[in-house]
């Protein structure tokens, strides 16, 4: 029994080896036999036909690839251009909207800011609307002022004279609003403005009207203590305001600026001015 088992194993191993060798031989021999030997010619012809069919196809992939590449580039460029165009359009729209909002805000400010309802030194009722379309230089002071108001009004007068010398510039309207309505009535204002520029308009009114005007321009004003004669000094901020033809307060000049500097600044504002309310 032991011998039979051993023999059986050996036999199986041999059969496996045989089948392996046979397979290899078959696969190797078939193509050689078909082509080289005097096999039927139609078989060889078929193979050649197959090769010839392959030949025309060879250039096709090349030309096809070229066309595809070009198409791909064009599509990419168009797509990219579309994206950039869309971005630019959205950007422009946004800028436009922001600018319109800005203009609208400026128009509101121009209409509401710094309005006044006062009497001029000839007794006529005046509001900011009367001076729209004109450049305005505006100073708050009082007629009993010791030295600063006269100095500033002389400076204001000088600025107006300097600008008047240039015919290409629009004329400037100087205004003087009192912070002391108690004493500065119409006749007092008339006497006072006479000493300065002939175009200088003095404005006064009731205490409430004057206070309102000062508040709109953020002007500080405070009456000092009265002496036995009833005289007093009014403490107040010292600023010359520039208002443009739209009624917008666009610049101010303090005590440190001289008439030449102020005139130059105003000239620049006039040259860069763009109307908010085109007629």
């Amino acid at each position: 029994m032991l011998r039979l088992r051993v023999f059986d194993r050996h036999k199986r191993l041999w059969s496996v080896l045989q089948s392996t060798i046979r397979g290899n031989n078959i696969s190797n021999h078939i193509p050689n036999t078909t082509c080289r030997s005097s096999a039927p010619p139609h078989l060889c012809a078929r193979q050649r036909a197959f090769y010839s069919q392959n030949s025309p196809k060879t250039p096709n992939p090349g030309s096809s690839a070229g066309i595809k590449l070009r198409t791909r580039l064009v599509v990419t460029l168009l797509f990219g251009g579309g994206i950039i165009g869309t971005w630019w359009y959205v950007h422009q729209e946004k800028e436009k909207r922001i600018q319109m909002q800005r203009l609208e805000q400026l128009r509101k400010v121009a209409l509401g800011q710094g309005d006044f309802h006062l009497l001029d030194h000839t007794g006529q009722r005046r509001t900011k609307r009367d001076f729209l379309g004109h450049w305005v230089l505006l100073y708050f002071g009082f007629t009993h002022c010791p030295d600063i108001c006269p100095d500033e009004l002389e400076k204001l007068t000088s600025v107006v004279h300097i600008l008047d010398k240039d015919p290409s510039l629009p004329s400037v309207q100087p205004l003087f609003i009192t912070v002391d309505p108690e004493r500065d009535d119409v006749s007092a204002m008339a006497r006072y403005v006479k000493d300065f520029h002939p175009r200088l308009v003095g404005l006064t009114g009731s205490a409430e009207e004057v206070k309102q005007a000062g508040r709109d321009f953020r002007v500080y004003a405070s009456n000092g203590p009265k002496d036995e004669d009833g005289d007093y000094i009014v403490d107040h901020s010292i600023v010359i305001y520039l208002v443009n033809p739209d009624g917008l307060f666009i610049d101010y000049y303090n005590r440190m600026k001289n008439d030449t500097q102020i005139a130059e600044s105003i000239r620049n504002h006039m040259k860069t001015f763009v109307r908010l309310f085109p007629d």
Partner: protein
Amino acid sequence: MSAPNASQRKACWDARDELWKCLDVNKDLTSACEKHQREFEANCPAQWVKYFSKRRDFLKYKEKIEKEGYEPTEGASKL
């Protein structure tokens, strides 16, 4: 009482300038400048006299600070 006009203002300022010049020369000895002081008071409203006197004090104080620098008052402690 109406406000001084241009010529009245100038008269006041001129009197003030003369007084200050005298005080500068005499090192603020008021007795030496009594004539100018009277002219000053005659040409200016009373409130202006007070105002300009205060202003002169301020200008001198300002000049002192600019020249000598600021010195804190003695006794003031530093935190």
